[in-house]
């Protein structure tokens, strides 16, 4: 009886993870450019490369993201909250999708990470 309940419970969550897809892929610029990710909601991670232009609270902040250990970059446009620590050379993540070669960020999803500290700097709840 115990085994049955456990099995039922496991079934529920396995179903969810396989269909609703709880996990989002997290890609580097080289991966998103190489693969077929047009329009697919993913997370993009990389190092900010300037020049950083535009207005995140206006028509959109524009910059490029580069692989940590590579040269490939991807142009990004983003609207919403920008973390205080955001600047060229920072390691950031954001959600969004690749549209016509430019990564369009989901509003308020930009996050910077400080590897040696307790928690990532958040600007908004997901």
């Amino acid at each position, binding site marked *: 009886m115990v085994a049955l309940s456990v099995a039922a419970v496991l079934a529920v969550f396995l179903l969810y993870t396989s269909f609703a897809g709880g*996990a989002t892929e997290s890609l580097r610029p080289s991966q998103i450019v190489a693969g077929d990710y047009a329009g697919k909601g993913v997370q993009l991670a990389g190092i900010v490369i300037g020049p950083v232009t535009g207005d995140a609270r206006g028509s959109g902040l524009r910059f490029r993201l580069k692989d940590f250990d590579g040269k490939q970059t991807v142009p990004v446009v983003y609207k919403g909250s920008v973390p205080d620590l955001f600047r060229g050379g920072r390691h950031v993540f954001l959600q969004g999708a690749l549209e016509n070669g430019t990564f369009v960020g989901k509003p308020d999803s930009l996050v910077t990470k400080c590897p040696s500290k307790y928690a990532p700097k958040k600007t908004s709840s997901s």
Partner: protein
Amino acid sequence: MPGLGRAALVLALGLVLYAVLAGGYASLSGRRRLGDSARNALVAAFVACLAAGGVLLAAFLTDDLSFAYVAEHSSRDLPARYAFTALWSGQEGSLLFWVTILTGMGSVAVLLNRRLVAEVLPWTVPILAAVAGYFVIVLVFVSSPFETQAAPIDGAGLNPSLQNPYMMIHPPMLYLGYVGLTIPFAFAMAALASKRTDERWIFATRRWTLASWMFLGFGILLGSKWAYEEVGWGGWYAWDPVENAALMPWLVATAFLHSVMVQEKKNMLRVWNVVLVALAFGLSIFGTFLTRSGVINSIHSFSQSPIGAWFLGFLCVIAVFSIAMIMWRLPILRSRTKMESLVSREAAFLYNNLFLVAFALTVLWGVAYPMVSEAVRGVASTVGAPYYNFFGVVFGLPLVVLMGIGPLVAWRRASLRQLGASVAWPAGVAVVTGGVLLAAGAGSSLLGMVGYTFAAFVIAAVVLEFVRGTRARKSLGEATWVGAFTSLVGRNRRRYGGYIVHASIALLLVGAVGIGVYGTTSIRKLEPGQTMEVGGYTLRYLGSTQDRVANRTELRARLAVSRGDKPLGTLAAGKNRYLEGSREVSNEVGIRTDWLRAQDLFVIADRFNADGSVWLKVLVNPLVNLIWISGLIFLLGALVTMWPDAREQRRLAKRFALARA
């Protein structure tokens, strides 16, 4: 001085190795003096770790930057009181902190239960020493806090968001919780090793488990309060891997605390209990590993820090060891009693266990999946809040219902009719509450309504239990109602303390639903003089100020808050720019708590523009302070359950003496 620290650690290593070897041999051959000697070695190891910690602390207090660790985590202008916070802010220091607490708690547990350990559970000492040994080996060979360098001009400084009182208590609380789970694990494994299937190990470690669980739970809430005020994004729990790291062992420990009661009453679930204790301990090691090794934060996995491999290895050793021990003793451990009815308190506890463990496993999957997927597929992934929230609701709501029903149902067997009669009143209260809330406009969210009514159900059930119990005690001859109440709680500390904890979780649910479901947000750009409206409040931007204070520049947007035409004072929100050391920028939110309306006005200054205007994100968070209040009630309930009961101690002592006779 770093040499002294290193020497102290090497000494600790030697002592711990001795404790493992001598303790193991003593347990095998029944040599009392060798066993005592091994125990002494564990205590001496604690002193050695304290010495090492003392050396490190002295280095922080004297700004000795020749210590690489001090230079990395402190700066000359760091106030002395934050030397402690800096001590455990990095990997090496926090490992040293962990092992010091472990050897300390281990020593106390073994000394307090001297006779039990010496005569019945001798393997406790070598097991505790082995766990400590793993950490000491890492500290001596892999990740030493005593690395030296040419002293730089100034240190890198402590992250400013860590420089506040919360960060002085939150890590020690969590560590007491994590480490504390080692004690029941060691005793349980020792009982298995000595072929003991009686409950002595449970009784001996009950308070340790309760205390660890209390510290862990309270530590998580403290962390949430810090996140709410210091990280300041408007929320209180982000399902961050570091947060989940503490939640998982806490959930399993909660399950264990319940199923242990079933073992006590009906001698059932013995195998399950040992499995749970090992799982809780394993998860606490996993949690430490997650938080301290940086494996989650970086997109490059284990390769960054060798400590990842060490911890993974340790987890494997623990898993293999626990499974082996349990399988070995399975024949004698298996209980022969069967569950009598699916409608009984035992059954309710079993369901509660299933949901709690299932939820803990889903959180574990959510945390581990990204690491696994990167290692296996080469493509990283992240698991966001929607996943956790979904399962939080799917498993959490039944748990809340069980929290209400459990106290109302009797052990062994309860007729459905009787249960229905008991449940009727609290259910009625819940329905009425629902109606009132609907009228008050909370009907906008079905989830919110469900959360509120279920919480009301639990609280009503708890109140009913207290009332029924007090009435019964009074009829048994207590003179006054107060007397009846205190004797009720005094004689059943665990039960009624537990009910208080249930009530605290229900309150937590109310707060979480309030802020999560019924909040309002507004993002606007304001020029000086302009206003914005959120949730009935009017905020007028007065202008921004910039002040040089101590080691930072404080940039603030000043706002005048009013409600209708009633002025409510001013509120400031902005950023701190730190001048030396880390040169960090920290987010400083403005919070105005309105106790009468039970809501927080939460202001984030998102961006200051060159033209003097400011982008503001303003939230109204209803009932958020209930979350912190529930934490205090949780503490109260936990303390009541732990309160020593002299009568029970005497009874147990008599039982064991009788057995020996």
